[in-house]
């Protein structure tokens, strides 16, 4: 009793292996035409999810960040990013030329720093953010001058922020104790360890003796919260701020920075497109986006209307761009740039977007979704439509196989039909683009965080054009002993 059934099982296995090794193409083709909708959907969804979440070969990350750079250089930077924040921020910069002109080697004494801050205060800024660390104890008799300067800012009602050292041991002061005791407001200047700075921290270390459970913000977010209460900060702490970089340099920068070449690059739209993709260094802005106040000019103390315009009523970041000081990062639109500009750009984004900068997360019903989850959700409608259209085409082709062959004179008609068959795949791209733009407009999701939907949609369309899911269905079904299409079964029967 057991032997025949064992033999049958063995025969079945052999036949299965035989079909797997040498599949009947005609049977496979007929089975392929009967691939069900659910299979196409599951196949495409699995592929998309793998691509988006598992990030094979780092492809997803690379695509996201590359797109963000191109977007900054090509569209948002030169054409879309408004000047709202630009008009409210300046950077007072100490660079190597400043040190040379003033014959003041770095680091400056506390007294010299106090004089610079005092020169800034004289221009009546809205606030000053010091992006220079005063943490290391050193013998300097002029420290009381810097302490007194904090008092002058208080009396003038101008907020003064100092960057603290985030690497100090718990319990240790993030800046010199004397400055803390004078009531200096300390902020966390930590930047994300990224090769190219495209994102900015939301949270930062608490550095002003806050209670242990207090959640503190990063430098730019703290400054924004303090200075712009009318448009309250609305950011998700589970995510990061996606920085949008402007490229149109402040006209004042052009006035004193563009000596051999103008800061304003006269690049036409189409040439810009070409360069953004094939030679980005050519479209990078030569001058910083934010207005720069050269510190040596500030210290000259002349009644320069330009300096007055750049400082009065603005948030002035005071920082350095010095060789040998590891305080520079690579920006997508400028190349290597002092980190003080990154804090300034982050504040610029916050001001421009009224406290709601673009982020890599969104909140739905109180739940935070990261960008991978968002993209998986965004791709579902695209897959549903693609799968439906594909199945519809398959069924139409399957019916056609059973009818008489087409006359040779109808070549044009055939070509037209083929074109129409593939044209709807382009619709997938349009659909994905629409989904992405809707995410940006409705939920403030950066282009970097939905662009993968477009790339994956293109891949799905390409796979459907060559019929990957139904071919796999046909093969697997054939190997598993699937029944051939009725027409073929009838032919086999009659033979």
């Amino acid at each position, binding site marked *: 009793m057991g032997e025949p059934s064992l033999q049958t099982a063995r025969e079945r296995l052999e036949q299965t292996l035989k079909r797997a090794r040498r599949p009947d193409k005609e049977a496979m083709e007929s089975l392929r035409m009967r691939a069900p909708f659910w299979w196409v959907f599951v196949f495409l969804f699995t592929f998309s999810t793998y691509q988006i979440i598992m990030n094979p070969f780092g492809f997803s990350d690379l695509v996201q960040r590359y797109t963000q750079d191109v977007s900054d250089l090509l569209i948002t930077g030169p054409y879309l990013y408004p000047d709202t924040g630009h008009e409210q921020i300046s950077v007072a910069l100490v*660079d190597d*030329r400043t040190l040379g*002109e*003033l*014959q*003041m080697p770095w680091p400056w*004494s506390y*007294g*010299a720093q106090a*004089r610079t801050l*005092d*020169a800034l205060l*004289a221009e009546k800024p809205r606030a000053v953010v010091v992006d220079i660390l005063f943490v290391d104890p050193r013998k300097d*008799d*002029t420290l*009381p*001058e810097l302490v007194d300067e904090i008092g*002058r800012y208080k009396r003038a009602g101008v907020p003064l922020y100092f960057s603290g050292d985030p690497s100090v041991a718990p319990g240790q002061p993030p800046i010199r104790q004397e400055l803390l005791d004078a009531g200096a407001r300390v902020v966390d200047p930590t930047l994300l360890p990224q090769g190219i700075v495209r994102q900015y921290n939301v949270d930062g270390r608490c550095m002003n003796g806050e209670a242990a459970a207090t959640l503190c913000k990063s430098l730019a977010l703290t400054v924004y919260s303090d200075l712009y209460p009318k448009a309250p900060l609305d950011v998700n702490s589970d995510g990061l701020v996606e920085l949008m970089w402007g490229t149109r340099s402040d006209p*004042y*920068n052009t*006035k*004193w*920075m*563009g*000596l*051999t*070449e*103008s*800061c304003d690059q006269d690049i036409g739209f189409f040439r810009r497109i070409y360069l953004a993709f094939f030679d980005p260094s050519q479209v*990078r*802005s*030569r*001058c*910083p986006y934010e207005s*720069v106040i*050269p510190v*040596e*000019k*500030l*210290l*000259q*103390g*002349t009644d*320069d*209307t*330009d*300096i007055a315009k750049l400082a009065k009523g603005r948030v002035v970041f005071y920082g350095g*761009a010095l*060789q040998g000081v590891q305080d520079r990062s690579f920006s997508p639109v*400028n*190349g*290597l*740039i002092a980190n003080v500009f990154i804090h300034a750009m982050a504040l610029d984004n916050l001001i421009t977007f009224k406290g709601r900068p673009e982020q890599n997360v969104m909140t739905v019903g109180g739940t935070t979704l990261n960008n991978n989850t968002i993209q998986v959700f965004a791709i579902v409608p695209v897959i549903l439509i693609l799968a439906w259209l594909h199945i519809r085409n398959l069924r139409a082709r399957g019916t056609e196989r059973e009818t008489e062959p087409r006359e040779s004179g109808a070549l044009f008609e055939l070509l037209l039909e083929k074109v129409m068959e593939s044209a709807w795949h382009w619709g997938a791209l349009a659909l994905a683009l629409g989904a992405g733009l809707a995410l940006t407009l409705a939920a403030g999701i950066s282009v970097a965080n939905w662009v993968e939907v477009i790339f994956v949609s293109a891949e799905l369309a390409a796979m459907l054009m060559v019929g990957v899911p139904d071919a796999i269905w046909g093969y697997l079904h054939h190997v598993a002993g699937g029944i051939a299409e009725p027409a073929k079964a009838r032919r086999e029967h009659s033979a």
Partner: protein
Amino acid sequence: MKAVFAAATLFATAFLIQPALADDTCSSVKGDAVLGARAPEVDLYDGADGKRVQTLKDDAFPRCTPITGRAPNMMLRVNINGTDYWVAPHMVKYHFAGNLPAVCRNLAMGGEQEKVGSTRGLGEGCPKPGSGGTTP
């Protein structure tokens, strides 16, 4: 009658503003001079990059003080009550006949250095774009 009244008004106005004009320009002082305080408080230093030794209220700071020296870091040396002090330029109104160095950069992103002429305004005296970066 009108002409007499107008002449008297003109004379009185000229008489009244004359000291003020003299104060602002310090025409009595030859050469470079600190005209007066600009900030509510003026710090006095013992060296160009020295230590603060005294702070004067703006009304206590003397007017029309000759500048006896200028340091590369822009600090101005003045003599007050027989003692030499240094003051920060932004804290005072001053007249300086000599040229101030122009503030220019050959693009912030490049490290190329430019020699420049002299000027008073930000960017003035800088070579124009396309001029090859030479000093006028």
